[in-house]
């Protein structure tokens, strides 16, 4: 139904004073965290040169740490925040100066933002009533949406008589009753407890198949981003770091920040030196020389690397336990180990670098705790293919174009 296109979108707050007052409550603390943001003569740059074309019915997730500008971007799409520069189009029409109510969008807020004096039914009927939809159609649409979300039995209740999960369903219901072109969600699951969050996440995936809307979803939780998004936009300090499918951002992170942000536990980083030799590339790191596989070597050659200081990264899941005398094995000591159930997260230090290993417990024998005692030596290795290379100076992925 609707494509959303953001061209060179920029948000500048004239000064920090002003920023503080634009946001009440929880957001008042944001300006302090925004210390990494670029400050120009015009003010603080909260979002810088944001470019994104969102296809019809696509599910795009904006993700990043607090104060990275993801919510501001969403609020600019909603029309709740003015756009300092660039052009926003929805369905081909420029929307920069259009009032929120005329953009044909709906929004779900983190705090639900239900009308406390109205019943669930009235909350959901409110946007339709304002659009002068006939009474019988309102009734039909509200009941249909309530059915979809499983809140039919609560229609006569006031929001305060509902639990957090139910309130969030009502908020989603209010957003979907009028079939908006674009559905904006601002951290809708952050106020829910962990179990409910997983459940609602699955419901959003189901919901998404049932309604014809383009989704823009903001979260700081990378799990939500990975599971929900068709495409993920990773932001930091108001600047887009990478746009891509969940596989792309996981397998080919554009830079150190993306590599560290996506994936739990975080990717392990260590410094090393990459050298081209007669037999191929060799990574000299952690007192070990690791021969790089020919495929990766080709890509490195294409990138024009001969000798370079790099930061290398390996995902914890791609590290295997090894014997200390195996070729390519690295040795260190265990700092702490956490049993997660199906896996054990072992934190080890090797040559001053912290490593996290995810070791499956399924084909494990013997007592777990004793195997990974604190301070015990540990040896591990990883496939050379699993290593990501980042330029030590710029943090950019060397191989990814």
């Amino acid at each position, binding site marked *: 139904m609707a494509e959303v296109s953001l061209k060179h979108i920029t948000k500048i707050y004239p000064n920090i004073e002003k920023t503080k007052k634009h946001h009440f409550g929880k957001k008042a603390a944001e300006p302090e965290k925004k210390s990494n943001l670029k400050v120009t003569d015009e003010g603080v740059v909260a979002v810088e040169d944001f470019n994104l074309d969102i296809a019809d019915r696509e599910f795009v997730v904006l993700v990043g740490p607090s104060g990275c500008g993801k919510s501001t971007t969403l609020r600019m799409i*909603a029309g709740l925040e003015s756009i300092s520069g660039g052009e926003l189009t929805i369905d081909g029409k420029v929307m920069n100066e259009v009032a929120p109510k005329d953009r044909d969008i709906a929004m779900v807020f983190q705090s639900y933002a239900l*009308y406390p004096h109205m019943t669930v039914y009235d909350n959901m009927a409110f946007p339709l009533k304002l659009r002068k939809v006939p009474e019988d159609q309102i009734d039909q649409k509200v009941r249909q949406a309530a059915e979809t979300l499983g809140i039919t039995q609560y229609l006569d209740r006031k929001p305060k008589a509902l639990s957090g999960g139910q309130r969030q369903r009502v908020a989603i219901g209010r957003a979907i009753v009028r079939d908006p072109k674009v559905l904006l969600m601002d951290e809708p699951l952050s106020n829910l407890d962990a179990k409910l969050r997983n459940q609602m996440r699955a419901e959003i995936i189901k919901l998404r198949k049932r309604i014809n809307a383009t989704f823009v979803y903001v979260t700081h939780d990378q799990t939500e981003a990975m599971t929900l998004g068709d495409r993920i936009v990773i932001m930091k300090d108001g600047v887009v770091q990478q746009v891509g499918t969940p596989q792309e951002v996981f397998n080919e992170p554009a830079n150190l920040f993306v590599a560290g942000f996506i994936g739990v536990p975080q990717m392990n980083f260590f410094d090393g030196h990459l050298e081209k030799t007669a037999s191929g590339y060799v990574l000299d790191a952690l007192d070990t020389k690791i021969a790089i596989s020919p495929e990766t070597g080709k890509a490195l050659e294409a990138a024009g690397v001969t000798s370079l200081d790099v930061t290398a990264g390996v995902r914890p899941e791609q590290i295997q336990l090894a014997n200390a005398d195996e070729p390519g094995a690295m040795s260190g000591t265990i700092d702490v180990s956490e049993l997660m159930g199906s896996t054990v997260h072992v934190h080890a230090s090797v040559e001053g670098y912290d490593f996290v290993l995810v070791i499956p417990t399924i084909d494990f024998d013997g007592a777990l705790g004793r195997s990974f005692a604190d301070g015990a030596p540990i040896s591990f290795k990883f496939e050379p293919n699993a290593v990501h290379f980042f330029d030590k100076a710029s943090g950019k992925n060397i191989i990814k174009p």
Partner: protein
Amino acid sequence: MANQQPQTLASEARHKKILTIVFTIICVIWVLPVVCVAINSFKLNTFVKTETFALPTEESFAGWSNFITGMTFGNYPFWSAFGYSALITVLSTALILVCCSMAAWYIARVDSKFCKVIYTLCIFSMVVPFQMVMFTLSKTADTLKLNTPWTIPIVYLGFGAGLAIFMFVGFVKSIPLEIEEAAAIDGCGPVRTFFLVVLPMLKPTLISVGILEIMWVWNDYLLPYLVLDINQYRTIPIQIQYLKGSYGTVDLGATMAIILMAIIPVIVFYLSCQKYIIKGVAAGAVKG
């Protein structure tokens, strides 16, 4: 430690007893004037001064005669004083509630120097005593024709705005901004956002501000006395003042009866709304 605990509990209980007694005494002192008014309104005039605190006896009991005397005293009909009092009270309170809630919403939500100045002025107006401005005010009110029961609410709006805006701003600030943003996305302009979303949420504060303003306007004596044309329009407090005879003689029994009649509506109103006033004051007070 185990031995000490029962002792502490016992002393705590004793403290509570003492406090209960102290506060009971304070309560009795507090309601005594009202009780006196009620008792004396049923006594013959001559007994009011001599047996002020005694209950009416067979000898001193006057029945309803004090009420009849009070209501028919002089040449001004009591019911029209009652009517003007009610009219001024209702109009003023309505005006204060509507205007101040709107103004407070604007002040709380729009961040500008102008709003800060207005807010400060409103707060400041609470500090200025009425007596300081009353003569210039009565002259101004005369000039602007604000001296009728239909226009005096505008003067009350000016005097009531300080407290009302202070309370409303405190409460509006405690309402999450997201709700209004949701309304904007759902299709409300500023006017509908205010009347359909913000105003219903302000209900507890509306009621508590309403109660405070009603009690104040209903009981106010000085402002209507100075501004209104006394021969034409009288409110109940003014009418009570006129019960005084021309040579300084006062029919105390009748005065008490009229005072009681003036008190009753406010007490009834307060009792029926008191659960809201506490809720409202607390609601506004949490975040200021």
